[in-house]
């Protein structure tokens, strides 16, 4: 019999590689363009008179004597104290990921090991909560938070993000734990372990791949959030994304768009590195939900 792979005619090959090139351009070029442009002055970044200025930085040379300048980064990180915002972002992300994984693994494990019908209903409720746009909940937080004087603080926002994260974390970890054979903890219990002991000595050593994948998505949710953080944090506690949005409000009038461009590039860099190192986990995390669901 013939090979499983039919030979492709040349025209189809050309079509495939053409499409691949276009797709790469569409998905990657905007980022490369912005990174390149972030080292230029505004008149080069938005080059109305001659688009080649954006490539070679004629105006930047005229102003700084060389085709690249760190002025945008200097303005964002030092004059506008963007480092504070990035510090806030990393505090929030760290605590959100840790808390959310701790309580999520306990819950996800329990859901995967119980056969009563209430586990199904808990999962359905989590699914409904997952579907809620977070912004619809924000109105519900603000009045009580103002009343209790906890609005604007980092810990408040961390707890809210952890809660918003839980439905997704539970689903991911629940389906992950279902793939760890039940016989493992059963035999540990026969040997005299309590349920928690079985979890501690048998499950925890085996759960890291799933936990890392789930943790990545928790991180992305906390890092990328705009609706919740911009509404619940006071100005000095702002994270990077709402800070960029705040830049926009002022920069279009003051002509400091380059600060926002530099801040945008700075915020993208950690994500870029993350995708580089954890590409496999991100792909497997995205597909895990689909294949099981």
């Amino acid at each position, binding site marked *: 019999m013939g090979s499983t792979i039919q030979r492709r005619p040349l025209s189809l090959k050309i079509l495939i590689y053409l499409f691949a090139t276009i797709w790469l351009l569409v*998905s990657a070029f*905007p980022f490369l363009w912005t990174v390149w442009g972030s080292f230029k002055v505004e008149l080069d970044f938005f080059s109305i008179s001659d688009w080649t200025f*954006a490539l070679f930085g004629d105006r930047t040379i005229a102003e700084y004597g060389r085709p690249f300048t760190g002025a945008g980064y200097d303005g964002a990180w030092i004059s506008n104290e963007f480092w504070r915002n990035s510090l806030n972002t990393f505090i929030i992300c760290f605590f959100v990921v840790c808390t959310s994984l701790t309580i999520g693994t*306990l819950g996800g494990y329990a859901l995967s090991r119980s056969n009563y019908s209430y586990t199904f209903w*808990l999962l359905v409720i989590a699914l409904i909560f997952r579907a809620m746009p977070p912004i619809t909940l924000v109105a519900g937080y603000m009045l009580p938070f103002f009343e209790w004087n906890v609005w604007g603080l980092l810990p408040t926002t961390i707890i809210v993000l*952890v*809660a918003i994260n839980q439905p997704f974390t539970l689903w991911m970890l629940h389906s992950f734990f279902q793939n760890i054979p039940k016989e493992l903890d059963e035999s540990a219990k026969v040997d005299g372990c309590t349920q928690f002991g079985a979890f501690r000595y048998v499950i925890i050593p085996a759960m890291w791949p799933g936990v890392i994948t789930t943790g990545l998505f928790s991180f992305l949710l906390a890092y990328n959030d705009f609706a919740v953080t911009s509404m619940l944090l006071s100005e000095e506690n702002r994270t990077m994304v709402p800070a960029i949005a705040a830049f926009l409000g002022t920069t279009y009038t003051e002509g400091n768009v380059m600060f926002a461009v530099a801040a945008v590039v700075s915020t993208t860099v950690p994500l870029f590195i993350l995708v580089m190192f954890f590409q496999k986990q*991100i792909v497997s995390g995205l597909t895990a939900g689909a294949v099981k669901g």
Partner: protein
Amino acid sequence: MRHKTFFWFILPTAMAMLLFIAFPIISVLLQSVYAPHPAVLIKVETCTPLVGCTEETTIDQEATRELRKAEPLGRFVGLDIFFDRGHLALKEVNEIFTNSDSWTNTFDRLANLPFYRAMGFTLTFTFLVTPFVLIIGFCVALMVNALHARLKGIVIFFSLLPFVVTPLIGALVLFWMIDSRGILGNAVQWLAGDPNLSLKASTSLMWFALIIYGIWHAAPFAFVIFYAGLQTLPADQIEAAQLDGASRWQQIRYVVIPHLMPLITFVALIQLMDNFRVFEPIVGFNASAHATSLSWFIFNDLGGETRQFSAASASSVLTIMGVSVLLFPVLIRTWRDFQRKA
């Protein structure tokens, strides 16, 4: 697992969801039927000799503050906020339907009501972006699957970027290119030969750009899932189809698509729910003059100096109702899965 053990394991996560998702929903429901207290007015009579007495109405600051403090929720108004001009606008809608002569006229006038304007864009966005995401994601998956093994990794890496990157940042990166001063905006002006063509000036162009952003952002998600599905394609079925003399197109139509069907439904359902919450691109594109979404509408009421909790809560409740409609098929699917397993 015994009930008691289960209870202790699930307690922390259940508490988090109860306190910070379930209670806020109740709080939103409550706030949507209470309106803020109006200012307490007092009449003060000032009498000056020769001029006579005048009666002035002023705001009693202290009493207002007292009242607001005593009942922070405000006064009960029932469903009034839902039916006011800023939301369902029953009176205005009724008037529009009785008085307008043509359908276009009806739509134009409906689009002037803020809630219907937001809903109009949200629905257009949701139902245009979702099918395109499915089609483009599927094509990219087929394309990557046909690439040389070494190229696959690189292509997947760059494909993930638009999806993983912060939505606001992705929107800004695109906006700076398609803005009239950006490289693509400039190119479009040059191609069209119209130097005044600009996103800021044209509603239809703005809608088009937002939809392009939506597809750009979500297509990688569909691609990754379909690509994973293609890896599990049964080789014997493809071989059988080839032996029967099926063309490439027929193989895709009759073997690949049926095999991926569960994944296609999954992506479609998730995308419908996610696109319904479209929000960041409207901020990033600075598009609120031309397009608003339900999420943006809530955000706009909550922010600024005057935080309008009641108005925002009412919009939130209406948005949640919209999401529930989209969620319904997902729940039915989960229920069927559960039945099958049980």
